[in-house]
């Protein structure tokens, strides 16, 4: 059960957006940077875009959940902990250990990955607008959890070596929880999360199998 109404939730998001304005512009630009690095065919290291995604999880965990959303819902503290953990995992795997590289391969995983990235940056807010969130409460990547989770799925699919599974666990949980909340308070944009998570996980697993097969 959700302890707040749709109107109160949208009001809270609008307040948060207003508080952070114009950080949304920077967040969208950083989203485009991630997209650029992801589709650029290069084999260099991908620490910078990984860092951007990690900082997004950290910002959502601390700013959105712990400092803002926890006034309405005690469970926001759990989400905050999960988002901060994901940020740390991304930094450990992708920045410190340089565990994966982004590369557009022109296969189904890369195509869906790019589509999810683009949708997280532009489609999510537009869908929000079309389904009644209003401009003040637009969900923006790097600021709000939904598009940040979606961006991460796209990003994980664009890793040349299969993304470490540990990085998919929290985005999977976050996608399910986000969609359940969206369903309960009538925010249809969030319903894109579970299909993206299921497709993402399936494609990552398939890539891992292929990769292991090729290594034999």
């Amino acid at each position, binding site marked *: 059960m*959700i*302890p*707040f*109404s749709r109107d*109160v939730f949208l*009001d*809270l998001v609008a*307040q948060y957006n207003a508080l952070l304005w114009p950080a949304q512009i920077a967040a969208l630009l950083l989203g485009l940077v991630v997209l650029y690095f992801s589709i650029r065919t290069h084999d260099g290291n991908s620490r910078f875009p990984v860092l951007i995604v990690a900082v997004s999880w950290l910002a959502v965990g601390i700013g959105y959940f712990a400092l803002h959303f926890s*006034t*309405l*819902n*005690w469970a926001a503290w759990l989400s905050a902990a999960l988002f901060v953990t994901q940020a740390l995992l991304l930094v450990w795997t992708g920045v410190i250990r340089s565990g994966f590289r982004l590369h557009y391969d022109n296969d189904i995983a890369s195509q869906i990955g790019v589509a999810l990235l683009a949708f997280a940056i532009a489609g999510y807010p537009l869908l929000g607008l079309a389904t009644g969130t209003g401009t003040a409460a637009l969900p923006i990547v790097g600021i709000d959890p939904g598009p940040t989770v979606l961006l991460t799925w796209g990003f994980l699919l664009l890793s040349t070596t299969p993304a470490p599974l540990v990085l998919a666990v929290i985005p999977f949980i976050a996608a399910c929880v986000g969609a359940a909340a969206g369903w309960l308070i009538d925010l249809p944009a969030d319903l894109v999360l579970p299909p993206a998570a299921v497709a993402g996980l399936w494609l990552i697993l398939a890539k891992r199998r292929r990769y292991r097969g090729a290594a034999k």
Partner: protein
Amino acid sequence: MMRTFEPKVLGRRGFLAGLAGAGAAANMPTASLAAAAIPLITRAIPASGEAIPIIGMGTWITMNVGNDPALRADRLKVVQAFFDEGGGMIDSSPMYGSSEAVIGDSLSKIANSRGLFSATKVWTLSQWMGVRQMNNSFDLWGLKRFDLMQIHNLVDWEAHLETLLEWKKEGLVRYIGITTSHGRRHDDLADIMRKQPIDFVQLTYNMLDLEAEDRLLPLAKERGIAVIVNRPFQRGGLFDRFDSAPLPDWAGAIDCSNWAQLFLKFVVSHPAVTCAIPATSRVDHLRQNMAAGRGRLPDAEMRAQMIRYIETL
């Protein structure tokens, strides 16, 4: 702000005195004289004989509006109207996000809250955490004493009951209660009602969820335990189902002019029920709900007719 309370006697005189105070509060709507003319029906708490109005107010979702000043001002109007209408019990919980803070904020801004019967809950594991949580509730409400402290959904009830029995002796809480909702842990609750010295139970009862009639309500009557009814509208589900249907012709015979009043009068007319706590975010709904605490209540025969009618819809 800390607030002290005299024992509640919500007679007409006390209520009108409260209204006079309300008039002094800046920017507040003037109290409804129609409401003042007819006090709310009260029921006695079996443990003490103290009378409380049969319609109170819940705060789940409706009062959880965070720190937004505009939304808080909006809910302040609901709380103000509640007291203007002679309301008593406000029920909340640390589980309800910012609701306790919003209620505390409202209480600090209105002048006629003397009729308040403050009811909140402890909802956490371990005695130590419970003490911390309840102390926080005192701060949030701005109170030195709660009229009623309830153990929410039986969570770690043995630990909290120990604290509360001690606190009752010390005068920090006046009554102790335990809560549940529809169909949850009724066996355990019945056991506690039989064996423990509690003053109140809170449970779900409405025109579609009648389970409490079988065992818990008769047991409460037998044991002299006051009953608070939560979800009297089935979280709004009763309106979704019946609001478009015509109100029966005989609704006027029990002074009901809308479905909300019919739903509430059904609940509070059960002989074991002390008070119902409908929640609302709207002043017009609040006034409809409070009006259910006035006028004629259905007798057993009429109650059966009410159930038969909604079964035909």
